[in-house]
């Protein structure tokens, strides 16, 4: 670890926060239909979209209608992209002449991209035509928008005297045109300027200095890259994702990509503050979460900077753990990316997580297990608030009264729903892991032997369940066993908890707002923040401790003892 490295990472987080606070306010204004400076451009676009689709975007929706619109729209978009992938060979823009895609890969890919997960069982440059990439890029816009507005609808459940949760379609289109499209467009142009290609020309054959030929895959990368990061999608254009020099050519693009993925989920915490008319509450949630993020960032950075002791002792290799990392990002830039991509559940990687040191690899795994260190679009905030509800319940038990949250009484119904939402996550990680480890098909997919093999499997399901999409990529993820099982886990992880959270919002909406009294448990204090942190860590850590002990922790001890597998 160097001082410069830490300073760079710290500066990044300060700038991020400075932008996220005002952007959170802008997002609130967009979602509540207030005037913004982009109206002149996008009002006509929006009207055209609704005229063509024939959707009435004015009527308010209760939670059931909102859920149905959310599921139905997602299903239709998934089917559209499914058909495009099935007919890849008959569709245009396939300069590399890539063949048909296997059915299990198509299933997994569509599930993964509609769910904002972007787990990839294929390598982009050897599987997808440019048109298929565009189709996935389409889902990279719509899936984060869907997730974000579900969180917004949830926030509306706390607003006093609101008749409904809003209109799904109106929220959907507004968030796309006023938030995702303009930021992605500007970012894409900047990325091209900094070296990210954007061309429909096919692969280029180079005649290298050493007299060899090198086939260089290209494509419309910059447009894809911008929304891949901004939408916390993370599915790479190329197999190596943001480690590929065409996706991420240098330190500047690396900073921009990190910034894009962290921007909206951080801002959304402040948007939520505006909904409940309590910015201090937003700062408490932000502060606790940032504390976790920074602590885990320092852990991964120090683990990677100290290098691999096995290679040092056996082969005399000097230096940090460079395996799977790119020179231009350095160890600090790689660690920050690893930390952010799993905190914000983006899943893009600028280094290969499978080759991280055991403790370094524990950090992304643990953040996906918590699934609430800011998290992805909407899903992350929902998980944070789920932990808040559980924390409020726990503190309510301590003082023996029905707790309130942001002025609404939290009763058995809400606590049960939040608890179920909490339990889904470990269940859909640990059960499939157990099944994979007890079947031949599951074990056959493991690349690295020993404790690391267990980490590979549990990482796959944690990444699927958290809709992250990063991988310990040694795992043979494209085998039918993993393609199908991770696909199912991705869908469960995405939709079950979101439906439950909308159910809670619907129930809260109907409740009268209770005025603040001396007996109210205040949740916008650092005392409550500490309880919140404790609940997150105890519930998150205890649930997963056994499997983490058998995976990364055991491997770290083995590595320090000089054992190889």
């Amino acid at each position, binding site marked *: 670890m160097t001082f*410069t490295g830490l300073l*760079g990472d710290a500066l990044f987080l300060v700038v991020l926060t400075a932008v996220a606070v005002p952007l959170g306010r802008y997002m609130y204004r967009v979602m509540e239909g207030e005037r913004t400076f982009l109206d002149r451009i996008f009002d006509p676009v929006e009207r*055209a*979209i609704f005229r*063509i*689709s024939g959707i009435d975007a004015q009527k308010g929706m209760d939670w059931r209608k909102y859920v149905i619109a959310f599921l139905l*729209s997602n299903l239709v*978009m998934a089917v559209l992209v499914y058909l495009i992938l099935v007919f890849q060979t008959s569709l245009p823009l396939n300069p590399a002449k890539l063949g048909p895609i296997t059915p299990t890969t198509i299933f997994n890919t569509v599930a993964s991209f509609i769910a904002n997960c972007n787990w990839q069982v294929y*390598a982009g*440059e*050897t599987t997808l035509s440019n048109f298929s990439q*565009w189709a996935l890029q*389409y889902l990279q*816009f719509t899936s984060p928008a869907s997730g974000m507005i579900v969180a917004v609808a949830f926030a509306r459940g706390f607003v006093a005297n609101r008749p409904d949760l809003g209109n799904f379609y109106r929220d959907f289109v507004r968030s*796309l045109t006023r938030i995702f*499209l303009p930021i*992605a467009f500007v970012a894409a142009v900047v990325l*091209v300027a900094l070296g990210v290609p*954007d*061309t429909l020309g096919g692969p*280029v*054959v*180079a005649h290298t*200095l*050493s007299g*060899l030929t*090198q086939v*260089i*895959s290209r494509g*419309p990368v*910059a*447009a894809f890259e*911008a*929304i891949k990061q901004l939408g916390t999608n993370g599915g790479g254009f190329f197999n*190596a994702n943001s*480690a590929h*020099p*065409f996706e991420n050519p240098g*330190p500047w693009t690396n900073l921009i990509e990190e910034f894009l993925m962290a921007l909206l989920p951080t801002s959304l915490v402040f948007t939520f503050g505006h909904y409940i008319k309590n910015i201090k509450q937003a700062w408490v949630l932000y502060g606790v979460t940032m504390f976790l993020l920074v602590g885990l960032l320092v852990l991964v950075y120090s683990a990677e900077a100290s290098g*691999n002791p096995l*290679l040092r002792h056996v*082969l005399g*290799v*000097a*230096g940090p753990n460079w*395996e*799977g*990392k*790119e*020179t231009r990002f*350095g160890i600090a830039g790689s660690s920050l990316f690893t930390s952010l991509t799993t905190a914000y559940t983006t899943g893009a990687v600028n*280094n290969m997580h*499978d080759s991280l040191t055991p403790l370094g690899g524990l950090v992304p795994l643990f953040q996906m297990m918590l699934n609430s260190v800011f998290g992805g679009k909407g899903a992350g905030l929902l998980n944070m608030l789920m932990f808040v509800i559980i924390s409020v319940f726990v503190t309510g038990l301590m003082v023996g009264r029905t707790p309130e949250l942001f002025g609404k009484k939290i009763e058995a119904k809400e606590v049960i729903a939040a608890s179920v939402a909490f339990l889904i996550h470990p269940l859909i990680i640990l059960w499939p892991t157990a099944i994979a480890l007890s079947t031949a098909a599951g074990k056959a997919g493991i690349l*690295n032997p*020993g404790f*690391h093999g267990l980490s590979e499997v549990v990482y796959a399901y944690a990444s699927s369940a958290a809709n992250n999409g990063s991988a310990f*990529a040694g795992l043979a993820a494209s085998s039918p066993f993993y393609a199908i099982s991770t696909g199912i886990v991705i869908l469960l992880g995405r939709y079950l908890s979101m439906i439950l959270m909308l159910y809670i919002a619907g129930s809260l909406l109907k409740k009268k707002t209770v005025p603040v009294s001396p007996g109210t448990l205040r949740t916008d204090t650092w005392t409550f923040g500490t309880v919140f942190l404790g609940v997150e860590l105890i519930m998150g850590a205890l649930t997963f401790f056994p499997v983490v002990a058998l995976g990364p922790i055991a491997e770290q001890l083995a590595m320090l003892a000089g*054992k*190889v*597998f």
Partner: protein
Amino acid sequence: MVMDIWRNVRLAVVTFVLFAVIYSLAVLGIGQLVFPWQANGSLEVRQGKVVGSMLIGQKVTSLDLFHGRPSATANPATGKPEPYAANNSGGSNLGPTNKALVQEVKANIAAIRPMIGSARPPANLVESSGSGLDPEITLQDAMLQVPAIARRTGIATSTLRQLVLRDAEGPTIGLYGPWRVNVLRLNLALQSLINQR
């Protein structure tokens, strides 16, 4: 319900046109018009032939030239190891306690020995990159190769050092990324020096 589905189909199609096609074409158009070199892959053309992309590393076989990092990529058709296969990016994915990692790094050390002499093998130069296409090495690792190249080519070490320093790039705004050099750019300059002799 049927009407709802039909409306959603129309919504999906119109948003598809907007976010898959119009957005893509807008970025494509600006990229091709304003930044054509970058947008087409930062290709270096010499005597009408593409010698490579300035962003993509390439396999160096000659002992006269600077060597890049190990690459764990494979040929996409055969699946056989083929370093710097720029149509099939990826890392080794070997875990830190995997015997295969130790063996791989051992082989990488043996391969780079002629370039670094008896020096302690630096991690960056013997551990494979994440993309398998890393175009750069650290400044120290370039300097480490100077004596061997000077011996082979007869170019003075001071000239070679200057060459390396001329192409070296420091951390962005003093904070982000290590001191490093682009191996292809360096080798193009070195090659023309060799050709002049």
